[in-house]
């Protein structure tokens, strides 16, 4: 039987009473959320107002005008054009790119280290699995700053300085047919240059520009599409006839021929580093600070990723491995075709956190003198202009944006890898 109390309230809106905001479970949560929201806004307003008032009292004002002023300092690693007359804003962008470079490189190598160590830790070979356990336990239990400093000081003390390469009785020499120099200031390697570049001028016949590289990338993209078409054709043939045609030499030709043609057209030459004056000149330089930071971040985060990978693999039931084995797959194929694809669903979510950690930990760069965004905007610019609050807010905004972007793209990737339930 139905009484009036059992009727839905919304059906008869007139029976709403103010006391229901507290007593009725349907409204109570909304009431408390509203109170919490008001409290948070009030607190933020209080702190913000306090900040503004105190800053005004101290005669300071929030202004970002300094970003347009000349920076006046030099940066060693410059992905874009920059000199000491450029603006603080440009210095911040240079630092930002340096952060992204080291974070990107470290994410890739950390993943490689992590997957290898994680898989090998489950190896049946006792020695291999124990070595990997030791790697994981040592690297993830010592702070990353210590690893950065250790690797950097080993590098600057163990490798020879450019001075040691000089003279008749040189104590060091260049490697790989005199093309690479490993010094305590970094690795100097030959750099590709083009005699027929888009940027060639009468004064500067041998150079490289972005256009040249776009052409090379276009050739590689073309190869990729053709190679995919060939692979699809092979799969169709296999499905129709049961025999997969041998395509590796076709694919190889597809990858090599266009690129070689483009490079020949551009007139590729190598600019080999040479010892001139104090340092090696020419070629490209991978600075010691970048190498130390990159290596330390990868090997440290790799240890965490190894554990994620191990957890992912152990989450796949043994029945899968046994079933694949029963079908006649070899252990390597079982791992790459059956276990890892399923394990990815477990591995990717914690992997996102590790990528975020790498990006944030890269702010330790100043310990080895790598000029990331914390070093330029949050370091020298802050000190030269004294605009602490402005620069720190900008830095926070930057790291927040990068971290959210990484999460966003990794979530897209995760959704593609997720088990599709129908």
């Amino acid at each position, binding site marked *: 039987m139905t009484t009036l109390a059992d009727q839905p309230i919304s059906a008869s809106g007139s029976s709403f009473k103010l006391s229901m905001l507290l007593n009725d479970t349907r409204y109570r949560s909304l009431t408390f959320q509203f109170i919490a929201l008001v409290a948070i806004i009030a607190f933020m307003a209080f*702190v*913000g107002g*306090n*900040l503004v*008032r*105190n*800053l005004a*009292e*101290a*005669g300071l004002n929030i202004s970002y005008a300094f970003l347009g002023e000349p920076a*006046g*300092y*030099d*940066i*060693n690693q410059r992905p874009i054009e920059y*000199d*000491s*007359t450029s603006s603080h804003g440009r210095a911040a962008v240079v630092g930002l790119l340096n952060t992204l470079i080291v974070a990107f490189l470290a994410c890739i190598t950390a993943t490689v280290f992590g997957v290898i160590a994680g898989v090998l830790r489950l190896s049946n070979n006792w020695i291999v699995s124990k070595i990997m356990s030791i790697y994981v336990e040592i690297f993830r239990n010592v702070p990353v700053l210590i690893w950065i400093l250790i690797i950097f*000081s080993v590098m*600057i*003390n163990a490798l020879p*300085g450019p*001075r040691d390469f000089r003279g008749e009785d040189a104590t060091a020499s260049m490697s790989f047919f005199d093309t690479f120099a490993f010094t*305590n*200031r970094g690795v100097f390697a030959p750099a590709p240059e083009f005699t027929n570049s888009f940027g060639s001028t009468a004064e500067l016949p041998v150079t490289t520009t972005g256009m040249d590289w776009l052409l090379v990338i276009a050739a590689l993209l073309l190869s990729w599409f053709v190679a995919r078409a060939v692979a699809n054709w092979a799969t169709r043939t296999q499905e129709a006839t049961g025999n997969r045609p041998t395509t590796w030499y076709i694919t190889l030709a597809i990858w090599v021929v266009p690129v070689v043609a483009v490079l020949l057209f551009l007139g590729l030459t190598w600019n080999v580093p040479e010892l*001139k*004056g*104090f*340092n090696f000149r020419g070629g490209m330089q991978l600075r*010691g*600070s970048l190498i130390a930071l990159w290596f330390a971040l990868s090997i440290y985060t790799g240890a965490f990723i190894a554990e994620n990978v191990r957890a992912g693999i152990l989450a796949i039931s043994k029945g899968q491995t046994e079933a694949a084995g029963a079908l006649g797959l070899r252990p390597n194929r079982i791992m790459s075709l059956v276990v890892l694809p399923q394990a990815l669903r477990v591995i990717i*979510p*914690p992997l*996102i*956190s590790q990528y*975020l950690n790498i990006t944030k930990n890269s702010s330790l760069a*100043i*310990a080895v*003198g790598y000029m990331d965004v914390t*070093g330029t905007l949050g*370091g*020298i610019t*802050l*000190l*030269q*202009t*004294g605009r*602490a*609050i402005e620069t*720190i*807010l900008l830095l*926070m905004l930057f*790291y*927040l944006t990068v971290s*959210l972007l990484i*999460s966003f793209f*990794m*979530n897209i990737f*995760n959704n593609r890898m*997720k088990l599709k339930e129908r």
Partner: protein
Amino acid sequence: MNRQMAETQEEVKMKKTVFLGALAVAAVTGGVASAATLDDVKARGKLNCGVTTGVPGFAEPDANGVWQGFDVAVCRAVAAAVLSDPTAVEFVPTTGKTRFTALASGEIDMLARNTTWTFSRDVDLKFEFTGVNYYDGQGFMVPADLGVSSAKDLDGATVCIQTGTTTELNLADFFRSNNISYEPVPIETGAEAVQQYNAGACDVYTTDASALAAQRANFEDPTAHVILPEIISKEPLGPLVRHGDHEWGDIVRWTLNALITAEELGVTSVNLEELAAGTNNPEINRLLGTEGDLGGMLGLDKDWAERAIGVAGNYGEVFETNIGENTPIGLARGLNAQWTDGGLIYSPPFR
């Protein structure tokens, strides 16, 4: 899915916490800056003095952990003048990066840390420089076996610099105006810079010439390194305080001037007691409080200057014991001689 959403939210939350923290710090900062520093120091019974993290001769703890040095002497003189106790000083080691924040936030009452007096620090950062205790200039140190005799030969060299200092900007200007290139290696503290320089990770170490001499004195073989003749900048180093508390600024300024005037008038740690009994030189009498009441004008007592000079003697004596030619640092007076001897050290009169 939920898990990584939570991770992301965790990130956002952390950033927010940091943000609030920064705001809170800034909010507190403004309040402290306007308080009367002299009263704070007296109430606390201790002077908080910002110094370097360790530059031999200027500020460094000795084997017993007692801070010694040229800059330390200024802190001790101020403590003696204000608190009648030269040991009532809390030394706060600061880096090139942290020093200004420490002073602006009120963590320290004064900064005596080889800090260059510049327009923007004085005007834009809102500090008050209370004088110059050392006239310095930026120099270069290179290993002698490189055979470099002039800074203009340094084309292409790798240079170690302390980041966040005026030296960084002077360096950029010098190389740009001479049209030569270099590779900067930014480093947080002087000690780390020296370590990299000794490992050969950089060819050149640049900082104030006095600090170069001080660091070189600690090397295994000081003669294997040369300081190049070029001095590429003016670096007047001196103690500083916050803007806005002029009474406190006056105390620090005139304590330093008392040490300088004492040398000019021949007041030393040896004859101080005798002269404090009264002389027939009115300026000495005013300085040491037997005539007039200069101390009262500062909000201190009559003997303030006598106590300040009594700590380690006059400016010249402090110089000789810490960084003079008979110490391992071995700096000549040069520009830092009294104006009567052709130097720049000059105090306004005590009148």
